[in-house]
């Protein structure tokens, strides 16, 4: 049985989380494989919520599977697909099944996904969602009604240290910190100085929140360019694209893993932040390699 993530956050351990991305369809065999592979190698496993606005098996469902297989899940909740009623209801259900960690996100726009004509909900934004979770934790719902059974979530959120311009982004991060979060998992970082500055900013406001640097391995120069143009919140610097371009043909994945592992080691050795969050969607089976190369296994 995995330790509750909340307990890990209280320690001084270097925290490692990873992501499991559900597939499209009711067949869960693949994701169960990933869960089995990763559950004992990381402190907790995030499950994405209709990631990139592509309809998939739900985050809540995979979190249940993680619990069933003895892992520690982090439920990702976006504001794109559900209104405040649905979100509150889902959270009550999650709590009742022992899922106690939630990552509060805004959500990608519908346009980047595969159901481009759907109505975007965005009844709430990520900051309001954090407030909502606190409300449920305190035993009330958003309308002020008493709950028969409160929740007890450990709350996390995301941030984009490489946003440009950075100031509006930091104002939002400040709002999230003031609302109260236990951990932040950042979007992909490729520049350690950027991450360092972000950590300094956060520490001025909140000394206790744990910050996990986002690690997204890139497996080729073309993929890097594609991601820069199409994936919201990703900014891969030219020097990384160049390094990937110089890798011999067929070694792209290995190179991506090498660069990612290098980043993780540096973050750990220089104590830049409290840990890392590895996102290698579609290649979850390679995550142990990254962990090994980074000296974490």
């Amino acid at each position, binding site marked *: 049985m995995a330790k509750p993530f909340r307990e890990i956050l209280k320690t001084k351990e270097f925290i490692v989380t990873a992501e499991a991305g559900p597939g499209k369809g009711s067949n869960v065999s693949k994701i169960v494989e990933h869960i089995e592979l990763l559950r004992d190698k990381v402190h907790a496993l995030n499950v994405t919520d209709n990631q990139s606005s592509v309809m998939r098996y739900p985050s809540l469902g995979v979190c249940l599977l993680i619990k069933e297989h003895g892992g520690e899940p982090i439920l990702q909740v976006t*504001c*794109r697909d559900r209104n*405040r009623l649905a979100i509150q209801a889902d959270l009550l259900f999650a709590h009742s099944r022992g899922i106690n960690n939630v990552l509060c996100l*805004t*959500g*990608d*726009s519908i*346009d*980047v996904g595969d159901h481009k004509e759907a109505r*975007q909900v*965005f*009844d*709430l*934004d*990520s*900051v*309001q969602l954090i*407030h909502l979770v606190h409300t449920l934790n305190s035993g009330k719902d*958003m309308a002020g009604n008493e709950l028969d059974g409160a929740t007890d979530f450990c709350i996390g959120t*995301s*941030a*984009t240290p490489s*946003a*440009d*311009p950075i*100031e*509006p*982004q930091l*104002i*939002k991060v*400040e*709002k999230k910190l*003031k*609302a109260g979060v236990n951990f932040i998992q950042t*979007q992909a970082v490729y520049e350690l100085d950027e991450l360092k500055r972000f950590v300094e900013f956060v520490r001025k406001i909140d000394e206790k929140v744990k910050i996990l640097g986002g690690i997204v391995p890139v497996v080729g120069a073309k993929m890097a360019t594609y991601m820069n143009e199409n994936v*919201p*919140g990703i*900014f891969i610097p030219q020097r990384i694209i160049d390094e990937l371009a110089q890798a011999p043909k067929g070694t792209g994945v290995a190179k991506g893993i090498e660069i990612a592992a290098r980043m993780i080691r540096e973050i750990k050795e220089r104590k830049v932040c409290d840990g890392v969050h590895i996102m290698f969607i579609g290649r979850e089976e390679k995550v142990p390699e990254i962990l090994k190369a980074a000296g974490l296994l």
Partner: protein
Amino acid sequence: MIIAERKLMEEIKRLVAPFKKVLVAGCGTCVAVCWAGGEKEVGILASQLRLARNAEGNKITVLEATVERQCEKEMVLELKDKVAEVEAVLSLACGAGVQTMAELFEDKPVFPAVNTTFIGKPEKEGLWTEMCGACGDCFLDRTGGVCPVVRCAKGLLNGPCGGTRKGGKCEIDPEKDCAWVLIYRRLEKQGRLALMREYNPPKNYRAVKRPGRIQAVKA
């Protein structure tokens, strides 16, 4: 004002395909200003329909008329005689105008020839931009006069999202500005960034219970 855009010709042709005599009805207010459905556009569409149907060997008679505001009963009734002569009406007004015509001339099919799109303004000649979402709960005072309900692609009240593109452009469209970056810059100029630091609670999306209906006080 209300911004509309003429529908594709294929769709318009399909709407009037079964008819031999139609009225193209324009409106002299919003749709005239945004070049979608004023007197000029009525003339052009009528001419195009005649040309199209002549080429098909299936002549169509097209009457033309424009009223000052197609959403006002008294003005629309001026078209009574012309409507009586035709089999169907193609309205170039916004949705309010089309429905007013349809309501007053219940025995005639009334079709929309434009798509009503948003409340907006001219950004520059011929380029219209959405500005207002008619949410019924305006809080432009808190955002330096930039509306995040419609100008933020996700309608966030505590933005920006993490998807802002470099230079402050929107995740959804690199041509569009991130509304929250605009808000930040505006409030910074005024020395009122404290407003942006304040938490905005969830919006009352039922401020206007739709379908909306308002009784103004008579003077």
